[in-house]
């Protein structure tokens, strides 16, 4: 990187100047105060920023007030042509980097351009003054290292601190034989997990053997089951044998018994046949006995006699029974009739009030013909006619008398009108005339006044009111005044009337008021008086009529009474003919006639009935005697026929029975014969059977049968046992086995079975537990979980290890970098510095080295060692410059900056100066900017770009060379 041009806008004393620089050595010459240091500071300020205001460094703000700042144009091997411009902005100024390709950058770009160098680092290598060189004696190795690293104290310290921190963090992550660091913990976990996993794997490994064992157990179980089955079969055989043993024994016994019963004979079906025969025999004998008995009975009954001839007579009498009963009934009816008639006669007598035999006789002989009755009715009618006429005449008389009485009373009650009334009625027509006139006058007068008395003043008042309101509202006082005037006019008009006319009118009205109410009353009074006169005349006339009629009626009544007395005398005479004294009521006379007639009838009927009674009684007596003859015993009339009937039926029954017995006897005789034959046949049969069974008695027959039965049963049993025995195939070996032997065998088999059973139980248990176990293993995810956990922990460990690795890498890189610097770069720089120093000092000094304390030593060609501090001022400076140049050379690739020197060679003598210039001339890769105030310096550099700073002020920056 080389500075090509400086453009100062305004900086310290400089303003608007531009300085073109050469690519190698530039000498900026100027007298004191020409502004050399200002330019040097300009470069540094532009590159690294304006110093803070409170900094010890000067800011070189323009005194003239121009634009603070400027440009540094550079040519860089990496970035090409760039322009760095810094102007006033924030404290450090506002920087812009213009790249060749047109891009722009800020502080950051500048930083890259300056290879991350800050001002201090830059100054420690690339910029120095005489003053700075003089501090060289204090420089030691560390200082040099720092300088070499070009990053000041902080950088190294930070790195060392980072290294330490990394070491610490690594320590937290891992230690060779630690327990606490994370990785150690993780590894421990992994180890434990592996152990767990191993256990788990072993557990899982048991799966295959378990499955194998399960299969084997299944096989073993199958074998055992087969064995068990066989045993069971054996047991069955044995138990069968045990069951069969008593059977054989039984067979033997049966056969022994059979041999005893060998010759038993018995007719086939003997018992049934025997019993059937004996049964039939008994039956036949019984029947025979019954027939004999019945015969004797029938014969005994037939011994008794009966009289069948009497039966005929009885039948005749019985045929006439209804006659008898009729007679009896008729007799009873006649008796009842007679009694009824007698009672009726007595009642008639009582009703007629007849007492004593004579009176009765009279009545019974009395004439009660129709003619007599008609006579009586005529008498009665006359009497009735008369009494009716009398009562009518009396009632007529009473009515007329009453009417007459009433008329007279009305006449007297009639009101006589007063004289005053009659007077006023006579006066009335005149007054009425006058009243009509008065009414006419009044009605005329009123019509005239009513017309306009009130309409006009009211209109005026309204007009006045309108005017006043209008006036008040419009404030037209004249209108108000007019309103008031009209109002007064209206008020004055109101009370004004016709007084004279009014006085006569009032008089008329008074008159009308007085008579108008009387007008009605007077008219009513007039009407009333007229009525009274009419009524009086009418009543007086009626009274006369009623009086004459009454007198006529009294005459007629007297006539009628005398006729009635005559009629009553005729009737009394008639009644005496029938034994009745005095006159019964005319109403009952016809009834009397009827009763007498009835009574006479009853008496005749009574006689006829008594005649009949006698006839019937004679009939009955004849019949009783007839019955008595037949029955040959005393009989009563009562219950006659019941007795007769009883006797008849008894007799009839006896005759019938005799007939039946005869028939029965005829039947029984052949039956008896038959039974006797039958009994004989049966007896023959029985004896034949007995003969067949070779016995004589019945008892013996049965015994024979029993024995025969037993024999056949035994034979059957034997056959059955033989059948059973032949059904079960029994090995020959066992055929002869005794019970004891069998039992022993059974026991042996049972023992074997229980052993098998035990074995099986234990195997089944084992199998179940194994199945359970394998099942668990199948479903158990522990193994998988653990594997996964292991993988995870491994990953975690790997992560931690990576973390550790990054830290380790950092620490190692830092360590190696530091080592590199100290062990490789530093000696190189020192060698180069020694080389330069050697040249400068004209081979007087051979080398530069570091003491054990870290301070610098200069070694002479003779090998003597001098601490730097002990060298002469110029030599010291030469050593320092050598070191600086060596440093700059060593970092040329990473930091190809120009070297800026502020007159550091002033103490050099001619020869060393020329050597110095020569050396610089060889360092063509570097750009040098040398500020000096010494003329001879300018002259020494023959091929350098020389710039006269003193001229710049006067020529205002247009200075170039």
């Amino acid at each position, binding site marked *: 990187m080389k500075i090509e041009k400086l453009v100062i806008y305004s900086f310290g004393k400089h303003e608007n100047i531009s300085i073109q620089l050469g690519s190698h050595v530039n000498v900026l010459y100027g007298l004191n105060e020409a502004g050399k240091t200002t330019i040097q500071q300009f470069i540094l300020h532009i590159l690294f920023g304006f110093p803070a205001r409170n900094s010890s460094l000067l800011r070189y703000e323009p005194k003239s007030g121009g634009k603070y700042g400027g440009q540094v144009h550079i040519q860089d091997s990496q970035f090409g042509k760039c322009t760095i411009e810094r102007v006033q902005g924030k404290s450090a100024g506002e920087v812009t980097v213009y790249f060749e390709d047109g891009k722009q950058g800020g*502080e*950051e770009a500048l930083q*890259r351009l300056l*290879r*991350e160098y*800050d001002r201090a*680092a830059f100054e420690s290598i690339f910029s120095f003054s005489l003053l700075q060189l003089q501090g060289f004696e204090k420089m030691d190795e560390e200082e040099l290292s720092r300088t070499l*690293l*070009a*990053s000041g104290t902080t*950088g*190294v310290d*930070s*790195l060392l601190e*980072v290294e330490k*921190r*990394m070491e610490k963090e690594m320590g937290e992550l*891992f230690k*060779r034989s630690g327990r606490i660091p994370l*990785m150690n913990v993780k*590894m421990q976990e992994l180890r434990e997990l592996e152990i767990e996993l191993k256990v788990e794997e072993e557990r*899982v490994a048991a*799966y*295959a053997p378990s499955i194998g064992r399960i299969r084997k157990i299944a096989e073993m179980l199958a074998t055992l089951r087969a064995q068990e089955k066989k045993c069971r079969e054996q047991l069955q055989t044995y138990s069968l044998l045990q069951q069969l043993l008593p059977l054989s024994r039984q067979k033997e016994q049966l056969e022994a018994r059979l041999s005893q019963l060998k010759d038993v004979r018995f007719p086939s079906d003997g018992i049934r046949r025997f019993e059937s025969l004996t049964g039939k025999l008994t039956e036949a004998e019984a029947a025979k006995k019954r027939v004999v008995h019945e015969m004797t009975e029938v014969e005994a009954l037939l011994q008794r006699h009966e009289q069948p001839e009497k039966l005929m007579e009885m039948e005749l009498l019985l045929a006439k029974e209804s006659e008898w009963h009729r007679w009896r009934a008729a007799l009873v009816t006649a008796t009842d009739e007679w009694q009824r008639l007698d009672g009726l006669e007595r009642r008639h007598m009582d009703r007629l009030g007849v007492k004593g035999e004579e009176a009765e006789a009279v009545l019974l002989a009395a004439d009660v013909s129709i003619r007599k009755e008609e006579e009586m009715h005529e008498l009665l009618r006359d009497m009735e006619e008369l009494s009716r006429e009398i009562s009518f005449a009396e009632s007529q008389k009473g009515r007329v008398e009453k009417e007459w009485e009433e008329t007279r009373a009305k006449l007297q009650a009639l009101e006589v009108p007063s004289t005053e009334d009659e007077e006023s009625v006579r006066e009335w027509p005149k007054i009425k005339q006058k009243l009509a006139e008065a009414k006419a006058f009044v009605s005329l007068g009123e019509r005239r006044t009513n017309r306009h008395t009130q309409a006009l003043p009211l209109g005026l008042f309204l007009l006045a009111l309108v005017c006043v309101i209008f006036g008040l509202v419009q404030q037209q006082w004249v209108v108000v005044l007019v309103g008031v005037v009209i109002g007064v006019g209206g008020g004055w008009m109101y009370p004004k009337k016709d007084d004279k006319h009014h006085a006569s009118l009032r008089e008329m009205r008074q008159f009308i008021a007085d008579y108008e109410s009387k007008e009605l009353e007077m008219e009513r009074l007039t009407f009333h008086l007229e009525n009274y006169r009419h009524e009086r005349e009418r009543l007086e006339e009626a009274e006369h009529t009623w009086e004459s009629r009454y007198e006529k009626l009294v005459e007629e009544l007297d006539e009628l009474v005398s006729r009635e007395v005559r009629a009553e005398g005729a009737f009394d005479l008639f009644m005496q003919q029938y034994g009745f004294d005095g006159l019964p009521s005319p109403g009952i006379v016809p009834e009397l006639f009827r009763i007498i007639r009835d009574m006479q009838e009853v008496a005749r009927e009574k006689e006829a009935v008594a005649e009949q009674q006698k006839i019937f009684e004679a009939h009955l007596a004849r019949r009783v005697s007839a019955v008595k003859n037949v029955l040959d015993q005393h009989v009563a009339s009562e219950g006659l026929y019941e007795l007769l009937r009883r006797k008849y039926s008894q007799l009839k029954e006896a005759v019938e029975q005799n007939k039946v017995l005869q028939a029965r006897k005829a039947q029984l005789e052949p039956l008896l014969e038959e039974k006797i034959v039958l009994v004989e046949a049966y007896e023959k049969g029985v004896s034949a059977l007995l003969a067949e069974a070779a016995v004589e008695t019945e008892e013996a027959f049965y015994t024979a049968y029993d024995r025969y039965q037993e024999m056949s049963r035994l034979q059957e049993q034997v056959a059955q046992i033989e059948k059973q025995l032949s059904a079960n195939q029994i090995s020959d070996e066992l055929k002869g086995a005794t019970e004891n032997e069998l039992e022993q065998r059974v026991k042996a088999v049972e023992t074997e079975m229980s052993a098998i059973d035990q074995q099986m139980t234990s195997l089944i248990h084992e199998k179940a537990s194994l199945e359970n176990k394998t099942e668990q*293993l199948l*479903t*158990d*995810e522990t*193994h*998988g*979980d653990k*594997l*996964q*956990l*292991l*993988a*995870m*922990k*491994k*990953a*975690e*460990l*790997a992560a931690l*290890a*990576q*973390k*550790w*690795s*990054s*830290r*380790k*890498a*950092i620490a*190692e*890189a830092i360590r*190696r*970098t530091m080592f*590199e610097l100290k062990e490789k770069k530093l000696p190189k720089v020192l060698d180069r510095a020694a080389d330069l120093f050697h040249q400068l000092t004209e081979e007087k000094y051979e080398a530069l080295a570091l003491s054990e304390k870290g301070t610098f030593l200069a070694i002479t060609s003779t090998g003597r060692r001098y601490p730097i501090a002990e060298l002469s001022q110029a030599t010291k400076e030469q050593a320092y410059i050598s070191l600086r140049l060596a440093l700059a050379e060593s970092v040329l690739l*990473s*930091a190809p900056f120009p070297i800026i020197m502020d007159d550091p060679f002033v103490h050099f003598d001619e020869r060393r100066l020329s050597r110095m210039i020569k050396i610089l001339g060889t360092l063509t890769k570097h750009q040098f900017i040398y500020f000096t105030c010494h003329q001879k310096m300018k002259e020494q550099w023959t091929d350098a770009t020389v710039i006269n700073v003193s001229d710049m002020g006067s020529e205002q920056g247009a200075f170039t060379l």
Partner: protein
Amino acid sequence: MSSIRFIHAADLHLDSPFKGMTGLPLEQLNRLRASTFTAFENLIDHACEASVDFVLFVGDIYDGEDRSLRAQLKFQEGMEKLAAANIPAFISYGNHDHLNGTWTRFELPSNVYVFDSDVSEAKLHVGGKDVFIYGFSYKERHVREAMIDRYPTADKEEAYHIGMLHGSLAGDGSHAVYAPFTKRELLAKRYDYWALGHIHLRQILHEDPPIVYPGNIQGRHRLESGVKGFYEVELTEVGASLVFIDTSALIFDHLDVSCVGVHHANEWLAACQEALRQIDRPCVVDLVMGDIDEDAFELFSQTSADEWLEVLREVVGESEPFRWIQSISFQQPVEQNSESGVLVQSVLHEMDDWTDTDWKDVLKEVYQHARTVKYLDVLTEEELTEIQEDATRILRAELSRLK
């Protein structure tokens, strides 16, 4: 048409532990573990539903010596299901489940045909056409012999020929080489389909006839990222058609999170969540922070990556679908940061200069320690890069903290 349909699956690695998971709560871990089974069940269900003609399992059904009884039981149950659906299955065991193992073997139903240690032929008759399947099972853990030589060349034109081979392409050094073969060798057999296994990355080596690695059915660590499953293959007289069926119960993946404009932690969390939304299924994710500018860098420097991760996990929480953030990493800032000085640069340059051997030497204290060597795998190049990146980040953070 006389076509046949079958399933080609390999490398089930049932119940194999998930590697490289850290900090996962146990129940989530269990969920993770169940995923190989879920994937397998998905496979079986698909086979039954699609009613394929047969199923091929080309090795590594179990995860070697670590095979659990449960895994075998589940596999057996799966086979029973296929048996119930009347679907035959063909198994050739691979290096992880070779025949020489001492583990318990579960009895498989009669629909399962297992190839023995030498290449043999299984014949079946599907839809009026003969199908010949060739394969072998690993006799032991390592079969380095080129088994391909033992496969017969197809000679019956009218039949289908399918080869099952668990192994790797000769010369592919990225995996342990087993039963090596070359594409040319496979094609020379004139089979209609080559069903390969062993490589967990799904790939079709050749189109016609297909030579196929279906990959494993469920990713188990971050390197087995993306959707996993198997192929449903239909062979017709004119060619083959392959349909990939996704079985993964959860996927591993990494996501780039752009940190442009991230100044505050909540913005960063939002950016992360936004990125996570790209995967709409259960997943385990590595987040890579990219586009880190100065502000973002400033933010991330405030605390350690572990803490950021913890914060993020808390925020993502137990939302559905289940998303687990396995790690977060930070890409180097686009522009070299200004914070570090020359000294830091030289320290960083120091690391840059280290060779693998140097690295091993530097880290041997842990990685070659007698006790750790058992648990720690050899660091891969990627891991070394990660370590270096991490170191750079820490160094910067530390220095900026000290400033």
